[in-house]
């Protein structure tokens, strides 16, 4: 059985607070009209939240390399979905 260090409760709570802060930032950005900047900021915040969940809640920070490869494969396939779909959406008109 593969074992890895489990983060302390404090870490989980801090990550949760971080996620809430990022959520509030997303909410706040809705009140500041920045055009395409809003989308950019919100996507950046979404990526940051994903990374917090992946590394801390899913324990990938300390996981066995096979698990990291499996998770990376998931993102790679997501990149295929988005990338090849964009060959249509960004060249349609």
């Amino acid at each position, binding site marked *: 059985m593969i074992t890895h260090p489990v983060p302390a409760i404090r870490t989980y709570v801090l990550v949760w607070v971080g996620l809430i802060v990022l959520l509030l930032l997303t909410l706040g950005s809705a009140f500041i009209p920045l055009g395409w900047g809003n989308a950019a900021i919100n996507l950046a915040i979404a990526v940051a939240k994903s990374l917090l969940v992946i590394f801390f809640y899913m324990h990938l920070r300390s996981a066995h390399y096979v698990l990291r490869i499996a998770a990376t494969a998931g993102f790679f396939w997501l990149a295929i*979905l988005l990338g090849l779909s964009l060959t249509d959406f960004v060249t*349609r008109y």
Partner: protein
Amino acid sequence: MSTLMLPVRGNYLDEGFSLWSWLSSVDHKRIAILYTISITMFFFVGGVAASLIRLNLVTPTGDFVSAETYNKLFTMHGVIMVWFFLIPSIPSTLGNFLVPLMIGARDMAFPRLNLASWYLYIGGGLFTVGALIAGGVDTGWTFYTPYSTMFSNTHVIAAAAGVFIVGFSSILTGINFIVTIHKMRAPGMTWFRLPLFIWSMYATAIIFVLATPVLAMTLFLLAIERFAGVGVFDPALGGDPLLFQHLFWFYSHPAVYVMILPAMGVASEIITCFARKNVFAYRSMAFAVLAIAVIGFLVWGHHMFVAGTSVYSSIVFSILSFLVAIPSAIKVFNWTATLYKGSIHFEAPMLYLLGFVGLFTVGGMTGLFLASLALDVHLHDTYFVIAHFHYIMVGGSVMAFLGAIHFWWPKITGRMYSDRWARFAAIVVFIGFNLTFFPQFVLGYLGMPRRYHEYPPEFQVLNVLSSAGASVLAVGYLLPLLYLLWSLKYGPRATANPWGATGLEWQTSSPPPVDNFASIPIVTAPPYQYEPPEGPHPNPSAGQKGEGSEGAVGARDGLS
């Protein structure tokens, strides 16, 4: 190396006879039987829908059912055949039965998860069948928006919910296969000693895990747009109607490879056995399976060439679609090379698989027609497409499934069937299939669209030929049901290795004991050992242990 010895237990069929002993069993072999019974029932439900479709198309004026009923029939046929028969067909039945046996394990890595996946499959099936009984769905199996979200008055959400649920069954099965193949191989069973069937199951499992979540999300988005008016696909709400097709085909094209990769694995096992020759270029066969699984994820846009996607995107997807033909061709050429100078025996499994190779080749080659941008404009959404994918899914997958059932039937049940009847049925299926679907190539090329309730009178002759073929095909499918069921009671007892095949599953008794092996085998040689260093080819019907199996596993200590 020391291995754990277990007391020899009876065969898995004698482990309990009550219904509960089956419904609560976590034995991979019993779960495989549960799946086999379930998918057979769904196959015949989907087959009845197909029969009614063909009956309606005997006359050009659609006299048999109304247009609305016709739409519901082809939707029911597609939904049931794709998600409740074809996708689980080989992986969930033979995959479940054979993966642990072929790699020298006692069970799957997660036996309870395995049983849970069957319950999810049944739950999803009941949901979808309930929707179909309650009034049906008329969107076609593809659930295309905006029809499915804005216009259809049928039970779209319920049917999609059933497909959503059954998707989780696929994911759980995929996870189980991947972990089992990684972690539970017998000592000495290195990656390049794995039978090619295992490679195909591994590639299939990867597709299950990576593609199915996208289908689940897509159907969820469809449901919330239809139910709550959230704009995802509706342009009036800020959505994009083609986004549904992108997401749907990102799953559904790889799903085609879920149907065909296991069939390829079966072909490799059966052709090498009945040609009494080792598989030609084993490693290229293994890598071709993986290449098909990966490239299969990159081609989905070829379903959308005339849907309004950009020309640039279409060119990219066209090129990628041509690329997937390369590993597919490698496999067909290697099967042919395996046959070359082989001592070929035409038992029923081999007949099915020879049929598979020919029909898959026709299906694959006509796929290249459809991947060509200009030709697709003419052929898109015609009967040419119907014929093409039925050559892959029925001519390919179903032929291989039947071949596999015949090949491993003695192992699964411990009984032999009548080879004479089985060969007759294989020929009937082959003739019936071609009579049903070849006229559809011509119909499509002449311009008959798919999913039409009526058609111009000049298409009647070809449609009557196709419907006549469907009735021959139906007989061909009913025959195995009859003689295989007959064999359960009256068939002669099967020996451990009636075909003289190599591979671990043939080294244990028929049917296998509960724990598969008395002790875990130690593997010291490649999977296929059909070619003795010198001398004549062995006869596959020779007896319990064909000479060709000598050396398949170096040490077989403790095999029962």
